[in-house]
């Protein structure tokens, strides 16, 4: 989330699109209700009428998979009716930037496409450069640190300033290119693609676009309904672009709010548990692009904005990982970090590779792919090729017992399985980060039952045993393991979580003191820091082992601004610690115009008073420079709107995307209709593995569109809910939602057992015939949609049922490889008795 949960109260219009907040993030509705009590309006765009829709002012039914057409139409509506926030566009975005004439778009394809490789050359979409300014590394320059002894040698970067047209009239400026791109998305066409009646479409557009007025705020609450598509990243781009057009980013009540589905999925991502990320969003070294540390720094460091500091975070992380072993002479043990090939190693690819037998062992820490993975029967079959599996969990999950799944040939499966009993969250202590980036501490309430142990202890015991084995026997590159800094143990050899917290927070090597800000981190080996964005969360050196006296444990729930004279807008700065630097609304410079005057005084986050910045929230734009004892405020024209981009402004046009700089509508991998906007049916750069291509289900055989969803009463693969009797009682059985019309066609009534199938699998479920799903007219054709939760499996004593993910395709988004769980094709029929 760019904003946070209690900030929802500040919105004027809330669009819940691709999420079902009332069911999957129930308490968010507390703040939506507060906004409604203030007069805010709520729009729910969803293929299903949900419990969110039940409390919405406007429900907009949409065909699953057609979100991009909906947004494209909204862009067109905004341009046609001049509803954009013009001052914001000129001040805080790249609307005025001039793009090279090599950029073009024709019939669904942008320039630079290699049809054979199915990938683009993004250099075709570059800006015209007006000026190149090399980094000033002189002793008084901004980049003097580059020459400090101990800093890895690399070639300093060159800042590139793009050509601009502040009037937004140049035909090749981003504004004009964008306006032109979306002219094709007329209400007629969008209505035909999405199935949304035109009057309802326009009504929703008018309502949401009303937040483009200066001083108004609109927020988008989204989740997997936007991301789990073969163009999910472009849906996210579209939401960001929409919010930039309307001036809704960086303001109270605005934002692009990703509703994270797991309590610490924000935190675990911060910690670098995706294949391409090290902690703190440093990219994993890639053998093709980064042969050594210099090449890594040169290619990964931005030439402008805050990411110019990336070398400091890399070196500090390496110092935390390898301690004294990491020196400037050995490139701070850079080579000890494994380099991947540069090819995707995502979940989908992992299970595709597992089929070959090359992956011998799988370690699972509270994850259950046998139910949660796409095309998950393929994943269960792939697991049969493993030599060994270690599953650490609270329950006998479907993955831990994959060898006795329905249909498995148990005696023929040679995989050894170790199931280790874990403590639950209130049987141990540590922090978790919520969607609003609040890092909150959880205390241990009770001892774990039986022989259950904390995951931290289990990780440590395995690590220490391996270290012992490698020290005694040697083996492949033993130093990678034996030289690792593991200074986290108490006097009894057990894990002390507060010591891990200190490593994450960062400290000065010389005195071991925890650091309060990542601005203190250095690239010369004098600081160590595991996760730079967390610096400050555990920095109280007076009580290093007491979480209650750290920022993460702070419990001041009085809402007050940082500086007097600013309004209190629900930031709760005294409660826990929000990364980065306790900032609650990121990009908050954009809440003011070029002169530093807030667009909305009543909900101002920062404000230039003529001499300095007054702060409601923690500023996000280099608001002052501290040199020795002298603090110099940065005047409004020198601050940065979006400090994490090279441009330091928001990008309506972005060259970093795999399928083009503007989001474009494509049909899902499996769709019953033709793309009505171009002859390019699906995302040209889609992430496709063999097992997905082989099981593509086509509309001639499988004409029904299916989508998956979650319920308030259950969670993810069900381990943590189908084993809880109180929850099973509130939603006991697996079911599928079917429209009355489809039910009549198929002779199905509520309570029947139905069979749902495609080329990937066959499942059964109870029929729930309801007006909550309805057929749609798409391009003159009736399209039926059905929907089922994916919480069920075979591994609980309390509630078992069909696995929706036996049907979902393992085709992925081009950028992130997230599976297209939300839109695919099936057939449905009543089960013969």
């Amino acid at each position, binding site marked *: 989330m760019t904003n946070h949960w209690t900030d929802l109260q500040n919105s004027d219009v809330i669009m819940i699109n691709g999420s079902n907040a009332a069911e999957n*993030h129930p308490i968010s509705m507390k703040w939506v209700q507060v906004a409604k009590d203030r007069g805010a309006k709520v729009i729910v765009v969803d293929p299903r009428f949900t419990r969110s829709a039940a409390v919405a002012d406007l429900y907009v039914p949409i065909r699953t998979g057609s979100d991009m057409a909906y947004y494209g139409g909204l862009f067109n509506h905004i341009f046609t009716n001049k509803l954009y926030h013009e001052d914001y566009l000129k001040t805080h975005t790249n609307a005025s930037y001039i793009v090279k004439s090599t950029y073009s778009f024709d019939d669904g394809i942008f320039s630079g496409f290699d049809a054979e490789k199915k990938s683009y050359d993004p250099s075709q979409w570059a800006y015209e450069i007006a000026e190149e300014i090399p980094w000033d590394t002189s002793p008084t320059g901004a980049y003097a640190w580059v020459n400090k002894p101990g800093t890895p040698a690399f070639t300093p970067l060159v800042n590139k300033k793009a050509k601009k047209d502040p009037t937004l009239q140049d035909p090749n400026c981003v504004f004009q290119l964008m306006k032109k791109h979306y002219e094709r998305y007329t209400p007629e066409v969008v209505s035909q693609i999405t199935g949304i009646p035109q009057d309802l479409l326009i009504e929703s557009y008018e309502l949401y676009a009303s937040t483009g007025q200066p001083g108004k705020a609109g927020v988008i609450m989204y989740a997997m309904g936007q991301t789990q598509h073969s163009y999910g990243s472009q849906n996210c781009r579209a939401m960001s672009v929409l919010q930039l057009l309307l001036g809704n980013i960086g303001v109270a009540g605005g934002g692009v709010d990703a509703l*994270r589905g797991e309590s610490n999925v924000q935190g675990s*991502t911060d910690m670098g548990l995706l294949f391409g990320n090290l902690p703190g969003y440093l990219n994993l070294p890639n053998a093709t692009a980064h042969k050594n540390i210099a090449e890594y720094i040169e290619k990964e460091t931005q030439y402008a904005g805050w990411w110019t500091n990336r070398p400091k975070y890399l070196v500090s992380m390496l110092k935390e990982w390898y301690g004294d072993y990491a020196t400037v002479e050995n490139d701070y043990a850079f080579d000890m970090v494994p380099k991947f090939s540069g090819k995707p190693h995502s979940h989908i690819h992992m299970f595709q590779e597992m089929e070959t037998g090359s992956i011998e062992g799988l370690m699972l820490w509270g994850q259950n792919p046998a139910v949660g993975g796409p095309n998950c029967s393929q994943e269960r079959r792939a697991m049969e090729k493993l030599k060994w599996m270690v599953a650490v969990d609270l*329950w006998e999950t479907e993955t831990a017992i994959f060898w006795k799944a329905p249909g498995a040939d148990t005696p023929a499966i040679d995989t050894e399985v170790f199931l280790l009993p874990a403590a639950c969250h209130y049987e141990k202590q540590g922090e978790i980060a919520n969607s609003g980036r609040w890092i909150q501490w959880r205390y241990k309430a009770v001892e774990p*039952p039986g*022989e259950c142990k904390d995951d*931290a202890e289990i990780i440590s015991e395995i690590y220490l045993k391996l270290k012992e084995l490698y020290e005694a026997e040697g083996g492949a590159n033993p130093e990678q393991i034996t030289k690792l800094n593991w200074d986290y143990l108490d006097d009894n050899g057990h894990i002390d*979580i507060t010591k891990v917290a200190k490593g994450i927070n960062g400290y000065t090597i010389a005195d071991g003191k925890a650091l309060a800000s990542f601005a203190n981190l250095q690239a010369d080996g004098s600081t160590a820091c595991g996760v730079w964005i967390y610096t400050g969360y555990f920095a109280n050196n007076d009580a290093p082992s007491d979480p209650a006296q750290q920022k993460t444990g702070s419990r001041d729930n009085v809402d007050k601004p940082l500086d007097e004279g600013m309004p209190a807008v629900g930031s709760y700065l005294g409660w826990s610690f929000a990364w980065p630097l306790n900032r609650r609304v990121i990009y908050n410079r954009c809440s003011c115009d070029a002169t530093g005057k807030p667009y909305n005084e009543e909900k101002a986050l920062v404000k230039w008073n003529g001499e300095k910045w007054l702060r409601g929230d923690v500023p996000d734009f280099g608001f002052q420079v501290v040199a020795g004892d002298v603090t110099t405020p940065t005047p409004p024209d020198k601050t940065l709107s979006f400090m994490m981009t090279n441009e330091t402004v928001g990008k309506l046009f972005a060259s970093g995307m795999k399928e083009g700089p503007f989001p474009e509508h494509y049909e899902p991998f499996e769709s019953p209709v033709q793309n009505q906007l171009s002859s390019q049916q699906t995302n040209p750069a889609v992430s496709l593995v063999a097992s997905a291509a082989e099981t593509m289900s086509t509309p001639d055989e499988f004409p029904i569109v299916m989508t998956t969803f979650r319920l308030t009463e259950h969670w993810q693969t069900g381990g943590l809910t189908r084993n809880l009797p109180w929850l099973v009682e509130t939603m006991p059985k697996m079911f599928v939602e079917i429209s009355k019309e489809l039910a009549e066609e198929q002779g199905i009534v509520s309570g029947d057992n139905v069979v749902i199938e495609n080329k990937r699998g066959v499942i059964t479920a109870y029929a729930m015939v309801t007006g909550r799903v309805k057929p749609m007219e798409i391009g003159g054709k009736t399209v039926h949609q059905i929907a089922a939760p994916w919480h069920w499996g075979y591994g609980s004593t309390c509630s078992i049922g069909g696995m929706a993910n036996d049907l979902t395709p393992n085709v992925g988004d081009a950028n992130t490889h997230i599976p297209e769980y939300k839109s695919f094709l099936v057939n449905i029929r009543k089960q013969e008795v």
Partner: protein
Amino acid sequence: MNLSRRGFFKLTGASFAAGALAELFGPSNAFAADEVPEMRIAGATESTSICCYCGVGCGMVLSVKDGELINLEGDPDHPINRGALCSKGNAQFNIRNVYDPETGELMLNPARTTKVKYRAPGADAFEEKDWDWAIEEIAKRIKATRDATYETVDENGVTVNRCNGIAQLGGAALDGEEAYMLSKFARALGVVWIDHQARI
């Protein structure tokens, strides 16, 4: 843990005067005429935590008596949920304890795995093992696979120091410190097949 130090509310009627509800009722005890049952959590030790389900991050209060969890409810001081919880949040109690439908007695949720279990190749059931055995055997499996599938230099002569034969999934259900340890631990093995719930 000293709760009062963190400004935590007390669950007895007398000291509840500082809470929001007291304002509703006024300072007088309106219920004096009735025989007042004692709340079952009176005298329990309280601690706070954050819900394990979605990303909202609601606070909760856990009450423990005689070393056992007896109550779990929303944290009234928490700025996001102000004491509220959804159905899942309220049911977190069941992750550890349930009430026996026959006797009504508090008991450990029988579905909870509390012992180390091992499934041998081809076996149709788990067998129980102890921790020392499991850690030793797992370390041996990891080492054997790592040593057999390790790649020091790739086909272009670039030092890659990676282990191609081990994969790791998970972390979103863990605490941040644990996730960090996992990230570091797996990379120190050279593992590059690392992904977790955020991807799917």
